[in-house]
C-alpha cells in the first residue's frame, strides 16, 4: 500500500498521514525501552526522597502518612538552617575563588597551549580531578592543622575558610577546563583586531576577551556552586563544629537517625540546584543565540 499513489480512492476513514511515517525498527524500539528504563532508574531514589519529604512519621525510613510537617521542621531546626546557610555561603565564595583563578588559568592554558609548563599545569589540574576525595580530605585535614595551629596562619582555623579553600580546588580545575574550551574556540584575531583598532591591552581584555569568555565563567562558577553544595567527604573532614555544612549534618544523621526534615530540606536544596543549572542553560543558550556560536550545553556540563 502506498499513501502517495492513491490519494482519494481509499474509503477507509483511518488517519492516513500517520501511515507515511516510517515505522521504527526493533532495535530502535529496544533502545528506546532501555533508555526510558534507564531514566526511571536514575530518577527512582530522587523521587523516593521527594515523596518521603512529605512523611509525617518521626523516622525518615518508615512512612506514616502525608503531610508538610517535615518542611516546617526543616525550616525551624536551627542545625539544619545554619547548615544550609554555611553550605550556601561556602558555595558562593568557593565558586568566586574558582571563577577568578580558573578563568585566568583557562585563558593562559588556551593561549599558550604549546608551552611545556602549561602541559604540567594541565596534568596537575587533571590530577586534582581524578584524586579520590577521601585522599584529598585526609591530606587537607593535617595540613590545615599544621598551617593554622603550628605556623600561626590563623585564618585557616576558621571552618568556613577551610571549606572554601577545600571546595575551590576541584572547582578551579572545572572552571579552567570550561574556560579553556571556550577560549580555544575563539580566534586570537579578535584580540588582534581590537589592538589594531587602538585598544590597549587592558581595554582589549575588558572589551573583547572577557565578554566573550563570560558565559564560560558564569557556567563554571555556577557548576562550582552546585559542586560545593554537594560536597560531603571533604567537608566532613575539614569543617569545624561551628561551621557544619548541610551535607555533613546529614551524614552525621545517617549514623544516628534520619528524620523526614532532612528529606524536606534536601528537596528544597534540589530545587536550588535546579535553578542554578537552569541559569547555566539560559546563559549558554542566550550567548549562543546572540553570537551565533558557542558550546553545546551537554559538552560544557560534561566538562569539555
Amino acid at each position: 500500500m502506498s499513501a502517495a499513489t492513491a490519494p482519494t480512492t481509499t474509503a477507509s476513514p483511518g488517519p492516513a498521514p500517520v501511515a507515511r511515517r516510517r515505522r521504527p525498527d526493533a532495535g530502535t524500539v529496544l533502545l528506546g525501552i532501555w533508555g526510558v528504563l534507564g531514566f526511571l532508574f536514575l530518577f527512582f531514589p530522587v523521587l523516593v526522597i521527594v515523596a518521603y519529604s512529605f512523611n509525617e512519621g518521626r523516622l525518615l525510613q518508615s512512612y506514616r502518612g502525608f503531610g508538610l510537617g517535615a518542611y516546617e521542621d526543616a525550616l525551624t531546626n536551627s542545625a539544619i538552617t545554619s547548615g544550609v546557610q554555611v553550605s550556601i555561603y561556602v558555595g558562593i565564595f568557593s565558586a568566586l575563588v574558582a571563577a577568578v583563578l580558573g578563568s585566568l588559568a583557562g585563558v593562559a592554558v588556551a593561549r599558550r597551549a604549546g608551552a611545556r609548563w602549561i602541559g604540567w599545569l594541565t596534568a596537575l589540574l587533571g590530577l586534582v580531578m581524578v584524586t579520590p576525595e577521601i585522599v584529598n580530605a585526609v591530606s587537607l585535614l593535617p595540613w590545615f592543622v599544621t598551617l593554622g595551629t603550628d605556623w600561626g596562619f590563623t585564618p585557616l582555623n576558621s571552618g568556613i575558610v577551610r571549606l572554601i579553600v577545600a571546595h575551590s580546588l576541584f572547582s578551579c580545575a572545572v572552571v579552567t577546563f570550561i574556560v579553556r574550551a571556550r577560549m580555544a574556540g575563539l580566534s586570537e584575531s579578535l584580540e588582534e583586531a581590537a589592538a589594531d583598532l587602538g585598544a590597549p591591552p587592558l581595554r582589549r581584555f575588558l572589551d573583547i576577551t572577557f565578554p566573550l569568555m563570560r558565559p564560560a565563567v558564569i557556567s563554571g562558577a555556577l557548576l562550582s556552586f552546585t559542586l560545593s553544595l554537594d560536597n560531603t567527604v571533604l567537608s566532613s573532614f575539614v569543617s569545624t563544629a561551628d561551621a557544619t555544612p548541610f551535607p555533613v549534618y546529614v551524614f552525621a544523621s545517617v549514623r544516628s537517625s534520619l528524620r523526614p526534615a532532612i528529606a524536606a530540606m534536601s528537596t528544597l536544596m534540589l530545587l536550588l540546584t535546579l535553578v542554578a543549572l537552569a541559569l547555566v542553560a539560559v546563559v549558554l543558550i542566550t550567548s549562543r543565540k546572540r553570537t551565533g556560536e558557542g558550546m553545546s550545553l551537554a559538552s560544557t556540563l560534561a566538562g569539555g
Partner: protein
Amino acid sequence: MTAVALPATRTRGRRFRWNVGVLAAPVAVWLLFFFVAPFVVILWYSFGDKPSLYITHDNSVLSLGRYVEAFNPTFVTVFLRTLQISVVGTILCLVIAFPMAYWMAVKLPARFQGIAVALVLVPYWTNFLVRTIGWQIVLSPTSFLADASRALGLGTPQLLYTTGAVQLGVVYNYLPLMILPLYVTLERLDPRLLEASRDLGANAFESFRRVTLPIVLPGVAAGLLLVFVPLMGDYITPSVLGGAAGSMVGQQVASQFNVAQNWALGSAMAIVLMVAIIAVVVLFALLFRLVKAIIDRFEHVAIVEGEA
C-alpha cells in the same frame, strides 16, 4: 649591508602582546599550596609512626612499617572487595550507559536531546549523599519494598548493609558520569559517516564495529576513567548502604584519621589507595593502546609501491 652581519635591532620580544602565561600563576600557586603540599605531607607521615595514644603521628624514626601494617588481613579483604566492586561497577555502568547514550545521541530527535541531557543531570546534581539515602530508604526493612515482600509471604529481605547494596548504589551514583562522555562523543559522530559506511557495503553491525566503535573509543575510555577513579575512593556509598559487610577502603582510611587518630597508618593507607588507582589507570591505558594497535593492525591497508 652584508648578509651575514648580525642584526643591530635584535628581537624586541616575539609578539606585541605580553605573556598571558602569567595568568596561570595564581592557580599554580593555589594548587601547589593546597593540593600538592598536603599530599607531600601525608606521604611524609606515612613513613612515620604513631608513638602513643595521644599523638597522631611522629616522624623521628622513618620506616616502611606503616605500609607493612596497612596490609593486615582486614585491610586486604576490604581492599579486594573495593577492587571487585569498582571493576564490576564500572563495567555495569558501561553496559547500562552505552545503549542509553546511543539512544539519546543517535535515535532521539535533536530537539529532545537537550531535555534528555538535562534529565541525566538532574539526579546527578541531586546531593550525592541524599540520593544514596534514597536507596537506603528503598532497601530498608521498613520500606514499601519490604512491605510488599512481607505481603507476598516472602519474609523481610536483607537488602541493606550488603555488598550487593553497595554495588547497586555505586552503579547508580556513577552512571551519569558514564552517560555524559559517551553521549558527547556519540553526538559528535557524523551520521554521514555511517551513511558512507552503509554506502560502501557494510551492514549495520559492520558499520557499528568499524566506524562507530573506533570513533567512540576515546569517549568510552573517558567514561571508564571518570567512573572508576572516584568509585575506587568512594566513602559515602558504603557508609550509607554497606554496613560492616560492604565496607570499602575509603572508610578504612577515614577511620584511621577520624576514629583511631593514627595519621601515620591512615596516610600509608591513603597512599596505597592512590597508588592502586594510578596503577589500574596506567594498566588500563596500556590495555587501551594495545586494543587500538590490534584494531589498526587488523584494519591495516598497505599501499603497494609502484602501482600509482
